[in-house]
């Protein structure tokens, strides 16, 4: 137990340092964008945050399917933790995107397909977390949440493809597109480093949240 806690807090400090480092290098080290200037630096928060949202909700989806199949409570806890962290990062993606939108587009929000589907995605997973609160019996909660977790994921590919399938205000993908990414390679390296650091932060948060939930479940069972 003690060893585990030491590993947890040390790795936590490492992950926090990694995130601080990529944010600092995104703000100061890499050159600004030639047409937008410094406001483009928000990309190094916005894109990784949105990516972690997708990743988190995919984990919810996979764990939900796994739970319905194996009924392993650890998968249910992992799904719940991943949904919480995913909601946080999706919120960050929307907030940072909104600031960028005000400076670039000229307004904070617009009901274009990408923004609308993202708002639906955020609300769906907030609903998932609320739904979990309404069912107290563990196994029943697991089943209900897993069913919801499967259905809610159907919207996630729509969020990604919305900019390709429909016209809108939001730009198309820069990196996840066929061919060479349409971004200078120095900026791309910074972006990928940010994505890596944010992904590690996601993994650490989910790991700790799952562990805590496991301890709580054990405590409840003992009572």
């Amino acid at each position: 137990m003690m060893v585990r806690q030491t590993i947890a807090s040390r790795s936590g400090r490492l992950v926090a340092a990694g995130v601080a480092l990529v944010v600092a290098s995104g703000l100061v080290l890499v050159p600004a964008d030639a047409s937008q200037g410094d406001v483009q630096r928000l990309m190094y928060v916005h894109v990784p945050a949105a990516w972690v949202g997708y990743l988190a909700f995919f984990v919810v989806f996979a764990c939900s399917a796994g739970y319905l199949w194996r009924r392993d409570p650890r998968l249910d806890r992992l799904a719940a933790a991943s949904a919480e962290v995913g909601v946080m990062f999706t919120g960050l993606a929307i907030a940072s995107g909104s600031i960028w939108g005000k400076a670039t587009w000229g307004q904070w929000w617009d009901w274009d397909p990408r923004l609308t589907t993202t708002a639906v995605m955020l609300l769906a997973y907030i609903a998932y977390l609320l739904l979990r609160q309404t069912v107290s019996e563990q196994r029943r909660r697991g089943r209900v949440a897993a069913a919801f977790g499967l259905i809610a994921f159907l919207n996630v590919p729509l969020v990604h493809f919305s900019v390709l399938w429909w016209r809108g205000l939001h730009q198309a993908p820069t990196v996840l597109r066929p061919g060479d990414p349409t971004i200078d390679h120095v900026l791309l390296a910074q972006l990928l480093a940010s994505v890596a650091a944010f992904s590690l932060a996601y993994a650490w948060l989910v790991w700790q949240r799952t562990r805590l939930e496991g301890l709580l479940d054990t405590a409840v069972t003992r009572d």
Partner: protein
Amino acid sequence: MSRRVTLLGLVLTGASLLVLVGVGLSSAVVYYRTPTELLAAHDTGATRLYGLVVPGSVRTDPTTHRLDFRVTDGTDTVAVESTALPTALFRDGVGVVLEGRLGTGGVFVADNILIKHSEVYEALKPGQTIPPGVLPSPLSVAP
């Protein structure tokens, strides 16, 4: 067993709903129209128009705050007038989404000018400066 059938039904229902929403969105709701589509439709209702600002077409009137320019999709060009204030990225060749309607004389009256940024990012080279916008923006830093 019956629980699995219910679940499968739920998933299938959700999937078909989303497909319907997708098909509906792509055909019924068009976020913006191109100059060619707008001119072909002869529609004077409220709409969004997307085009690239024709280089050299921007005229500003400092007393009336009126902005005149043209947008193109490469095939057709529409003249635009507006009193809206776009961001500092408004410049020759940039993509703009205009909210407004086609007025008399074929001039599009825009209530709002949004800059649609492309997915291309280029690093600022040493010594290079960000090109100034055509207009001063409330968000741009004073030189």
